């Protein structure tokens, strides 16, 4: 076994080029659990947690784009200044694990694992985030919905690492809600991210933990776009109910050890309706 701790992106990419099947390690909050339990064998590990280039963020005030390095932690996302630009992502971050977990867990690791229950992912989907991938020989950008291809399956190729993710900084209200069996330290049974974009007159909705991938809800989004009054911040009760119904219809949940499909379907409807009402508080 080997462990490499590069300090620059160049060295990390070089290490990966020489061992394309090496295991990438960021905060370790997914990987070390598997390693400790003997569920995963590793031979070569490339640790990314001290690659300075991955632990930075940039806010471009002209294009209104925020780029988070893969090594940005949930603790950082939950606090200023990042929280003010992506409030829904900050809300999602606050629900992750515990302080110890948020201090270590990275957005790149959440993307790397790509669990349908990953709390950052519905927000990245609703924000139409772009995932940045890089290898020693090139780089490419993928929309989040093309990056996540299945439960814990991504479009990342051997030799590539996630360098970061870009999201738009929007003016409108946005939020994230999650249902779980308790408040702290809980994996989502069902989760919903709602993002409003007043300039484009759009409402974007993404569901977590109710399908093999994060699910966008084009029907619900289209219905909301015509039903809401962005200027008055209003929407009727019947439009909220219709929106919730369309969210339920978009879900593709399963029964498993955490919950039942029926409960999950119900839950995403409740959460979607509540979030739409919060975004447009006037009746």
């Amino acid at each position, binding site marked *: 076994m080997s462990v490499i*701790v590069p300090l620059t992106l160049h*060295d990390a990419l070089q290490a990966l080029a020489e061992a394309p099947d090496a295991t990438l390690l960021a905060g370790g*909050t997914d990987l070390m659990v598997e390693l*400790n339990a003997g569920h995963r064998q590793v031979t070569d590990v490339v640790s990314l947690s001290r690659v300075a280039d991955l632990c930075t963020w940039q806010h471009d005030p002209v294009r209104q784009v925020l780029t988070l390095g893969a090594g940005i932690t949930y603790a950082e996302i939950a606090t200023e200044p990042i929280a003010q630009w992506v409030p829904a992502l900050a809300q999602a971050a606050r629900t992750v694990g515990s302080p*110890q977990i948020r201090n270590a867990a990275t957005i790149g690791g959440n993307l790397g694992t790509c669990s349908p229950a990953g709390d950052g992912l519905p927000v990245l989907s609703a924000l139409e985030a772009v995932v940045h991938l890089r290898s020693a020989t090139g780089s490419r950008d993928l929309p989040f919905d093309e990056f996540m291809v299945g439960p814990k399956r991504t479009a990342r190729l051997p030799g590539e690492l996630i360098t970061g993710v870009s999201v738009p900084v929007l003016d409108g209200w946005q939020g994230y809600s999650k249902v779980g069996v308790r408040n702290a330290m809980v994996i989502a049974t069902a989760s919903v991210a709602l993002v409003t974009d007043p300039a484009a007159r759009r409402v974007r909705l993404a569901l977590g933990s109710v399908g093999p991938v994060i699910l966008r809800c084009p029907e619900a989004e289209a219905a909301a776009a015509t039903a809401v009054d962005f200027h008055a911040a209003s929407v009727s009760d019947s439009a909220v109910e219709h929106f919730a119904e369309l969210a339920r219809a978009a879900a593709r949940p399963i029964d498993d050890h955490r919950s039942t499909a029926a409960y999950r379907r119900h839950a995403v409807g409740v959460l979607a309706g509540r979030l739409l009402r919060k975004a447009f508080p006037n009746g």
Partner: protein
Amino acid sequence: MADPMGHHEQYALHVNGHTLEVRDAWLGESLLYVLRERLGLMGSKGACEQGECGSCSVTVDGRLVCSCLVLAATAVGQQIVTIEGVAPVGSPSDVQQAFVDAGAVQCGFCTPGLIMAAHSLLERSPEPTEMEIREELSGNICRCTGYGRIIDAVQRVAVSRRDGGAR
């Protein structure tokens, strides 16, 4: 490629201000395992080995983390502080003393992790609200106390530090 930090089966960790050699170790070992089994520092407790219980909490470069989720060999060159580094034996820190005074210690298994978490919380937020304390200690599970006395202990420290008590 050359390993810039020279990690092989032998490496050194900075723990509580000392440089400690780790020999003949498997590189897949967690920091918790190395602290306890290789370096003889038994204060950090191992229970869940999956980051849920917080009893192995330490700081790495000032950040509170679960040592069971840190790959030890990646912590070379970083400053690790364990419960043994909080205060010398026989002269407890104010947080440790407050845990005793408030009756926040029962079986004691979770205590080292909670002391680490409480110190970390009070450094960032000297006068936390009860809600903040509950949130910030939510990564540390205690099966004995019901948490009331632990919260009480943290509040006692906040008050005595504000009133100029010694650390």
